[in-house]
């Protein structure tokens, strides 16, 4: 290489050495600059912390309930019961904190399952086409005509007997499975479409012309394309699944007692609004609303950040 060329090359890269970062760093940087995203992220962290380590927030056991303390209104900092108690006399602050775990666990688990299934089935169907695609597409179609929530309700009522245990996590597994059972189609379709699109990209053709194996093609070149669209939809999905669990709880199909979730708290608290104890609805309702809002805002911000056209 001639010296002139080297010099020129050095110049060129000087001009180009703009931000030396990948798509993620870029996205992250643009997220950091949005106050709504930052606030949302902080709240989500708090909620995740509630789910993982509730004892940080309160030392009280949400299951230690004394009928003598029934229906105390929030005492704030003035009494033993910060957010009051419910009619069983359970500390409502502790319950609200405890409700985070099933709600968060459920939505995260459902997403984990649906996304995994989506990537596997959507990836295989899109990449190989042929009969795999035919089968997957047909099954997706069949699943799509059974309305998601209706399907979950049906499954949960039909298989109510299926119970793993009463813990905050075990209790939420049946609704998790039911939602996942009907929720995987969206991700599968999304991934399949992304894969079909990615197959046409020149760099995928280039890898193929190098003789790359199917696995390499899929995992290095094709599936990463599906990550962005799937990922940017996730925060909204988290919110949606939390709501769905809550809706199932309204129907008595959510987590089972003694475990409690925000959905359960809302379902049980709602009728008390007019009964003179609105805090029983307002507190879990607000926490749920804030969380969904945070996820939705973060999702919006993330989508903007991942979309180069909107930068």
């Amino acid at each position, binding site marked *: 290489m001639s010296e002139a060329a080297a010099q020129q*090359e050095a110049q060129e890269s000087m001009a180009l050495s703009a931000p030396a970062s990948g798509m993620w760093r870029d996205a992250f940087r643009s997220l950091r600059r949005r106050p709504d995203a930052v606030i949302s992220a902080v709240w989500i962290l708090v909620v995740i912390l509630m789910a993982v380590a509730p004892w940080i927030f309160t030392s009280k056991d949400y299951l230690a309930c004394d009928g003598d303390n029934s229906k105390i209104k929030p005492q704030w900092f003035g009494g033993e019961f910060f957010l009051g108690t419910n009619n069983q006399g359970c500390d409502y602050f502790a319950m609200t904190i405890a409700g985070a775990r099933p709600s968060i666990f459920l939505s995260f688990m459902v997403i984990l399952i649906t996304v995994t299934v989506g990537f596997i089935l959507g990836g295989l169907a899109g990449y190989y086409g042929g009969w795999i695609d035919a089968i997957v597409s047909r099954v997706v179609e069949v699943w799509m005509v059974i309305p998601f929530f209706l399907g979950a309700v049906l499954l949960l009522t039909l298989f109510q007997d299926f119970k793993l245990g009463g813990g905050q996590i075990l209790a939420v597994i049946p609704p998790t499975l039911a939602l996942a059972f009907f929720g995987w189609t969206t991700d599968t379709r999304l991934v399949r479409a992304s894969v079909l699109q990615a197959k046409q990209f*020149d760099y995928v053709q280039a890898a193929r012309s*190098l003789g790359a194996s199917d696995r390499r093609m899929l995992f*290095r070149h094709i599936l990463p394309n599906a990550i962005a669209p799937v990922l940017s939809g996730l925060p909204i999905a988290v919110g949606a699944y939390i709501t769905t669990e809550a809706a199932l709880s309204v129907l008595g199909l959510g987590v089972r007692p003694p475990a409690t979730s925000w959905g359960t708290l809302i379902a049980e608290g709602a009728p008390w609004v007019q009964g003179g104890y609105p805090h029983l609805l307002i507190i879990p309702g607000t926490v749920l609303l804030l969380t969904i809002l945070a996820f939705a805002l973060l999702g919006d911000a993330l989508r903007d950040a991942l979309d180069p056209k909107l930068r």
Partner: protein
Amino acid sequence: MNEPTTVAAGTAAAGETVLEVDNLVKHFPIRAGVVFKKKIGAVKAVDGVSLSLRKGETLGVVGESGCGKSTLAKLLVGLERPTSGGIRVKGEDITRLGRKGLHRLRRNVQMVFQDPYTSLNPRMTVGDIIGEPFVIHPDVVPKSGRRKAIQDLLDVVGLNPDHINRYPHQFSGGQRQRIGIARALALKPEILLCDEPVSALDVSIQGQVINLLEELQDELGLSYIFIAHDLSVVRHIADRVAVMYLGSVAELGTEDEIYESPMHPYTQALLSAVPVPDPKAREHKAEIILEGDVPSPANPPSGCRFRTRCFKARQEWAKTATPEQKDSTSYADQVPDNCRDEQPLLQIRPGADHPNACHYAAPRDVLHAA
């Protein structure tokens, strides 16, 4: 009419034949149906192409959009399987190769893609991109030597070897195309297929890539098939040129033959249509303006594929047509019968030493016409 002679014409480059294409056909089925997809037709993307490539030679392939250039390239690197016909790389027929064989083939035949923006995975570093061939063919370079090999390749294509960890978006179009070339060179192929490697680049950058390709050919003795729709670029780089029209070769000859004495009316029209960056050329260039567009390869015209747009055919027809015929015949039918019924073969015809596929071939210097 003359005896058909063999196709392997051309005098420019010497050396052994490294690639031979024999009557290559690729039809893409057109399917329709909701439950069961039925084949209802075929896009005749490549329809009987025969070519050969010698060691160290550059074969240019030109033609309008959709005439099957890219399909031909994909067939040659094994990205598509031919419908029929043979491709021999150094005497070995690759159309019947299995997985293993294809894997081996990749080492010998590599490809440079058209668009440097889309042909590099944006999520991989330059090192990963250029090193990928080594991962796929682990026996080429031992693991320990890979970094060095990648840096050598970067050096060869004129990029800074220290930029191994950068991402494609940090490079300009020309630099990206160099990365693409480096990747193609990694396996030390003898044949490089370049599918419009400079079309997406600005004129001022085109030169860099063309020069690089020429240098590499001199240094490494590569053979190129260089696909382009820009006839100027092809003239610049190619030793021989194949002019394609609707899936088949209309004319094949050395660069001189094609540009200085084109035989096929299509070649002539093509050449005359290329604007020459010289205002003085305005006066002495022959103007042949074709009517209409290239027909669909799914439903190509009978006989000579070019007949629907051919000025020559119309001239020939006019010689014999009566005035009433002239009035009553539609434009598309104003062609001699043999053009309509008989597909002209690619063969050497009177008037030139290189093969063409026209019943009424006649030389005409369109570039220097007075």
